[in-house]
């Protein structure tokens, strides 16, 4: 199949003063189902490279967070809430204790 191909020249677009109603209504329902991923920081630690490479099954690492300390919930690097770790059937869940 052959088709005639020709070059196009794009027209210059001049900004006009915006008027009339919005093209897209501010309708949150359009994006309400968009999912975002959260991360709950349980705790940090520091170990040496030697210790890291000698970690084996059964090894225990203490974290820098107390048992009663809440976990922080992040969207990317932004802290959005705090909570406590709970069990939900076979999974861990985070029960919100504070919204930032």
């Amino acid at each position: 199949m052959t088709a005639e191909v020709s070059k196009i020249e794009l027209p210059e677009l001049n900004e006009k003063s915006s008027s009339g109603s919005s093209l897209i209504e501010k309708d949150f329902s359009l994006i309400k189902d968009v999912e975002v991923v959260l991360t709950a920081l349980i705790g940090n630690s520091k170990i040496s490279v030697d210790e890291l490479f000698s970690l084996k099954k059964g090894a225990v690492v203490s974290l820098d967070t107390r048992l009663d300390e809440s976990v922080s919930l992040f969207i990317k690097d932004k802290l959005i809430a705090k909570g406590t770790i709970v069990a939900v059937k076979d999974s861990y869940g985070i029960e919100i204790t504070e919204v930032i």
Partner: protein
Amino acid sequence: MIVRVAKHMNFCLLPLSQHHKDMLKEKLLSNWNSWYEEWIPKNDQDRVVNIELTQLDNKNLGKWFGRAHVSWYSTVDKGSYSVGIAHDDSYRKNLINQMTGCQETDFSQGLIDASLLMNKLSEVFISQLVNTELSFVDDKSITLQSMQSVSKLNANFAGWVVEVKHQQNSNYLLLPNQVIKAMLFTASTQKANNLKTREFAIGEKQIPITFNIEGLTINLQDLRTLQVGDVLTTHKKSHEQIKMRVANTLLDDISIKLGKKQTQKAVQFD
């Protein structure tokens, strides 16, 4: 970069006497840093020329590489030559940076990263030297057509010198001779020791590790109305939810159990 045989120099062939070879070997295998000072006669300082020593192993070109800053002086009227070896940071840095573009590694012992530099330098030198006619002051000449020629040349001569011009700088290269092998042996041994030291230092370095519950999701509607008492979770099993990050790098496929150790949260590798 231009590689040119230094045929206009007063010396091209390395005419080391057996006595000098033995002395050089002995000194190189001992402490060649301190030896430099004592071995260069003061009254010959005006004849000192800096050259670069490079060793290419005959059988396995590219495997061996070593270098030193050499002060070469001749007493032609007495019919003898000698060579001294030292290392000089600025000279080394200049040559390596300009000719290879390599990042400087650890030269504290006057050594180089053999694999890094050999790959670069052998490409540069050999490609430039192939089909280059080398002329020596004693009217001998040879054309390097292959690396095998280098070996043959090496078998017949103690060594030879070429001038390497890069930008406005000249360096002089002395290619294989048996004496330099001794230096390389020393260098490789010291290099190995350095590596050992470095590995030890890295092993002690403290690095951050982080443990998260990852994979929690929430839609924007729920996020908008998020309130105290809400519970977020996933469909994953608990041991799949906890993730370890080493210096921000996710280490997947490690099963981790959450627990406690005295009053602190703790994790156990399952």
